[in-house]
């Protein structure tokens, strides 16, 4: 838009009065920038309008200036307060964040410690249970062995082919009593020596088989044992128990014969 058109359409006055819209303002300002003559005209117009304004000025009451000062001071103090509040709130926010972070870290540490403890306890419990299971297995094995032994012993004595023989003590050991179980079919001899009288140290009971007048060693008879496997002697006519030195003898001490039973 050229300067003449701006002047003829009164856009310069309207620009001064603030009546124009953005697009027209841009056009006028662009023309003012380019045209020194238009710029001078506008400067005169501005000066004239300003002069008219001063010629028609009305003095405002002093209270307005005081109120303006008070208002601006108030805004400043509010800004300062707001900045302080903001800083304080920011500090509070930072502290809050740190507190939350610390709390989370503490919760994490405690929960980790708790889980570790639980894990350790579980490990210990598992180990204990494993040990108990092993112990039970051992005990079970032993029980099975005992059962097996008991079965075997039971089989040895509770058999139609077994002949139980009671060996009662004579005058040398009147309290003594022993039971011998003989199976001629399986050629086994089992003795229960628990009924024999206790001996002094260095002595032991020994059983002998009499075969055609010759005493043949069948083995030592322990006082504490219930079932003692003895040697089966073919053709034995009687069974005899003597007191011998500890460890037994090759030949029986007939003077210390305490019991005898014929087969």
């Amino acid at each position, binding site marked *: 838009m050229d300067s003449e058109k701006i002047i003829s359409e009164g856009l310069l006055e309207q620009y001064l009065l603030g*009546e124009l819209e953005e697009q027209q303002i841009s056009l006028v300002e662009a023309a003012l920038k380019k045209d020194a003559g238009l710029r001078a005209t506008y*400067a005169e117009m501005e000066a004239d309008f300003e002069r008219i304004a001063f010629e028609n000025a009305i003095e*405002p009451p002093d209270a307005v200036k005081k109120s303006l000062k008070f208002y601006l001071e108030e805004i400043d103090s509010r800004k300062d307060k707001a900045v302080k509040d903001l800083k304080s709130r920011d500090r509070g926010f930072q502290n809050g964040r740190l507190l939350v972070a610390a709390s989370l870290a503490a919760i994490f540490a405690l929960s980790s410690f708790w889980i570790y403890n639980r894990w350790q306890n579980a490990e210990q419990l598992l180990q204990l249970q494993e040990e108990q299971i092993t112990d039970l297995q051992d005990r079970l094995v032993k029980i099975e062995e005992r059962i097996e032994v008991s079965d075997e012993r039971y089989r040895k004595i509770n058999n139609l082919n077994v002949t139980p023989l009671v060996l009662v003590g004579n005058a040398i050991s009147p309290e003594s009593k022993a039971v011998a179980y003989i199976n001629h079919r399986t050629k086994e001899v089992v003795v229960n020596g628990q009924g024999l009288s206790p001996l002094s140290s260095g002595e032991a009971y020994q059983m002998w088989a009499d075969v055609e007048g010759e005493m043949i060693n069948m083995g030592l008879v322990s006082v504490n044992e219930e079932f003692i496997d003895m040697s089966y002697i073919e053709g034995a006519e009687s069974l005899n128990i003597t007191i011998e030195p500890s460890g037994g003898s090759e030949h029986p001490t007939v003077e210390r014969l305490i019991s005898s039973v014929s087969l």
Partner: protein
Amino acid sequence: MAVDPQDIGLIDRLRNGDKSALYLLYDKYSSALYGVILRICRDEDQAKDLLQETFVKIWQKISTYDQSKGRFYTWAYRIAKHTTLNALRKSKPLIQTEDLSVYSNIASEEESPDYAVLNGLLKKLEPHHQRAIQLVYFQGYTHREAHELMKVPLGTFKSYIRQAIKQIREKYGQNALLFLTIIEALGNGQ
């Protein structure tokens, strides 16, 4: 644009947050702006509030003032005028015909309180020129509203304004010439 060198210093201080510069600008321009505000709103209590609001806006928006585009007073005048018109839009029942239009009928502007009387050079203008300037400059009407108030075509109204401005320029120019002549005569007399 010719900006008062004293204003430039004050405006620079104002941009740096110096409130005392604002108060000095207030001392210089408040009466001129109050004259405009009071003539537009026609209510002294409201005009006082609007004058304060105008200077608060000046304080807040000084960074947007571009002195290469015009005088400080012109910029401040626009702020005062728009602040006042916006306040009237909110406070009075209006029939708005254009963005700056605030008055519902002619009757309201026919009243002439004391402060509405114009002074200075404007009084020497022909009545229709005086009236045209009064409507657009001191009462906040747009050209489109004002020509209807004066019951003349828009083109004619624009001519009134142009002629008024020309006469003002001439009369101020004559006064300035007269002033310079007196100064010169006084100088020669010494």
